[in-house]
């Protein structure tokens, strides 16, 4: 086994090029914690501008096919990019683009050639940001129960009505990747369809939700969520991906990735900050990190973070070496969610009340630990609750149902 990517001369040169480019093109100000809503929006615009620059170089979606505007790079180059971007505390894309990430993968697997050519380049080049709209007031864990949002065929168009909740992020979106009901009387799993639509169409209203989480443009997760209303929104039939009432199949790609099937390589940013804080902060004259009970807590936290990292590395490898997967995707998701939730208590115990305040004087780690206190809880539900992840694992292990369930396909040409 080899847990590390070995880099060739050419790849090391690539790393130097990427580093130099990022140093020249990532504004230092982008790493700030926004001080106001206006500032938050300004920072978002800066992130989007960076995204477009990365997209133009093929570095935004590095492994996506070049013929659709992606980087066309191999996994090793993609890892180099991820690692270098990570040095700036950013991910790829550097803003919330969940719909682009998951939608583009689904379109690659299930879209027609014309749909790929139409939808993918703008995503891969960072020209659009896409939200994914799944959850409805009556369909949360039971995603297949989507029925409040419907699409009805009308000539060359579909007309969408309904409501989605707990979706998106701060700062609006350009496109929407969504699942709707296209046959209210149809059988379960045979009545849903996927659409990739323009978010600026008439009849779409976005209303913010006030939630316990914070943040929103750091990368894969967003603490800010919206309610989106659809009132006779007319979209061309071309927006339908995968065929009418074939939506559940398309969802398998999407959900596999969202449930951790793609894996991840990267450090744990909470851990780095927590350790530094505990080394720099004294209680009763002794650094927290030197106090026996805190040290024990830190060891427990570190190990959980390490196991989570290793599950991510394993899934990453399984995906890119195209090895068969079973329960590993939802396992990573389950582990990440339960660990994040558990960590809120562990960090609170190790650090004390300073973990709860963002106060610049009395808070801890630049407010980062306070964010974890909230988001460790909030993250339990997006992409499926911890219970849903366990149900998925059991089905794939082969004990949840009479027949064993297969993992969703995440590679084009395998569907």
């Amino acid at each position: 086994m080899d847990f590390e990517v070995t880099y060739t001369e050419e790849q090391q040169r690539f790393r130097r090029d990427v580093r130099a480019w990022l140093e020249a093109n990532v504004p230092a100000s982008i790493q700030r914690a926004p001080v106001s809503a206006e500032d938050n929006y300004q920072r978002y615009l800066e992130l989007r501008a960076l995204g477009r620059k990365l997209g133009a170089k093929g570095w935004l979606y590095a492994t996506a096919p070049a013929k659709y505007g992606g980087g066309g790079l191999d996994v090793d180059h993609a890892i180099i990019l991820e690692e270098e971007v990570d040095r700036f505390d950013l991910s790829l894309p550097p803003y919330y683009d969940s719909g682009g990430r998951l939608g583009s993968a689904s379109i690659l697997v299930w879209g027609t050639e014309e749909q790929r050519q139409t939808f993918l380049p703008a995503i891969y080049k960072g020209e659009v940001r896409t939200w994914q709209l799944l959850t409805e007031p009556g369909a949360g864990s039971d995603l297949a129960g989507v029925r409040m949002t419907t699409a009805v065929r009308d000539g060359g168009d579909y007309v969408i009505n309904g409501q989605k909740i707990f979706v998106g992020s701060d700062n609006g979106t350009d496109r929407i990747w969504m699942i709707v009901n296209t046959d209210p009387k149809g059988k379960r799993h045979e009545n849903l369809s996927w659409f990739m639509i323009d978010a600026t169409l008439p009849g779409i209203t976005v209303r913010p939700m006030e939630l316990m989480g914070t943040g929103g443009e750091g990368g894969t997760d967003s603490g800010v969520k919206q309610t989106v209303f659809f009132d006779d929104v007319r979209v061309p039939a071309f927006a339908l991906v995968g065929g009418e009432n074939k939506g559940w199949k398309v969802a398998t790609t999407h959900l596999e990735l969202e449930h951790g099937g793609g894996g991840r390589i990267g450090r744990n940013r909470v851990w780095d900050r927590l350790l530094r804080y505990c080394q720099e902060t004294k209680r009763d004259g002794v650094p927290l990190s030197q106090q026996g009970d805190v040290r024990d807590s830190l060891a427990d936290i570190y190990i959980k973070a390490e196991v989570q990292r290793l599950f991510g590395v394993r899934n990453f490898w399984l995906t890119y070496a195209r090895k068969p997967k079973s329960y590993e995707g939802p396992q990573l998701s389950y582990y990440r969610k339960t660990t994040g939730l558990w960590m809120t208590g562990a960090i609170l115990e190790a650090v004390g009340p300073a973990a709860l305040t963002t106060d610049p004087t009395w808070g801890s780690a630049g407010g980062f630990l306070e964010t974890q206190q909230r988001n460790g809880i909030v993250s339990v539900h997006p992409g499926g609750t911890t219970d849903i992840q366990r149900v998925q694992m059991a089905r794939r292990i082969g004990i949840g149902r009479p027949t064993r369930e297969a993992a969703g396909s995440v590679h084009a040409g395998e569907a």
Partner: protein
Amino acid sequence: MDLALTESQEMLRTAARTFMEREAPVDVVVSLQKAESSLEPGLWRKAAQLGWLGILIPTEYGGSGDRLSDAAVLYEELGRGPLPGPFFSSGVLGALTVLEGASEEQRRRLLPGIASGERVLTVAITEPNASWGPAGITLTPQGKNGGYTLNGTKLFVSDATSATDLVVAVRTGEGTSDVSLLHVDARARGVTARRLPGFLSWQCEVSFDNVEVPRVALLGDANRGWAALTRALERALPLLCAYIVGACQAVYEKSVLYTQTRVQFGVPIGRFQRVQDHVVRLVNHLDSARWTTWEALWKLDTGRPAAASVHMAKAVASEAYLEACNAAHEVHAGMGVLIEYGLAAHTQMSRTLFHFLGDPRWHKRRMADALEW
């Protein structure tokens, strides 16, 4: 990056699994449980012929000098039993302690016999205080006629009742780490090994009653024993972890099969989400142990600093085996505690290995030290 086994590792895995299925199926493992000695001579001889006892011993000392990760493939398969016997005690910890601590002449004298299986060498570290650190070593030899006399007790010594040779960690100075290693004939006058009764697997008491040990029995240099033992343990522990990973894998497979075949309320019990939760918990522990162990093995085989990873792997694996067995018992209910079913052998082994060579808390603290927090 490549997390697959190599072709030769796959071949070793197949060979070892075939061997285990033929020579050590559940009924054999169960029947061995009550024996005073963990060593079954027929099995031991065959394992020696396959080269398994010298897998880590360099070729110049009669072994095959394989990498740790190759040996780990073998130990995963042994753990599936869980196969009793001083495989780890002698073939891994014993061999590596001699390799790290002994003089060249001593290596040439001891290692070929370990590789051939004629010598069974186990290392006696802890004492009634059950500490796995150097401060816990209090057994102090008395100098006599240029040699030593030993009086005292070593405890929780693995597989001592089947050993021909012992390496005994003894106190030889005031400093905490002033520990030396003595090679003692396990059959010498005054040496008594006794398997401890109860819910633990072949952990023994070894008592020394005026045991006379010649001067040449000192392995390497005086007061360098703890450093040698630390080096040996860093490489040995991941193989104990690999044994545990294989054990957890077997416990997992047993549990999955049971939930698919045991019918209650008219359906296989795996259909119940409460039962599924036990299996999920089990596989999460299994995979935590697997990947922390294999990353540590990879670091050691490629010459990377590995101390923190090794401590983490032992902490995670020890906990994983205990928890995996707990989950399996919740799945199996009455069937799980039936001795002949085979789960109980794992459960007892999981408790044994939980503390053996340091429990999770102890290793987590060593990990924190190694990471220089």
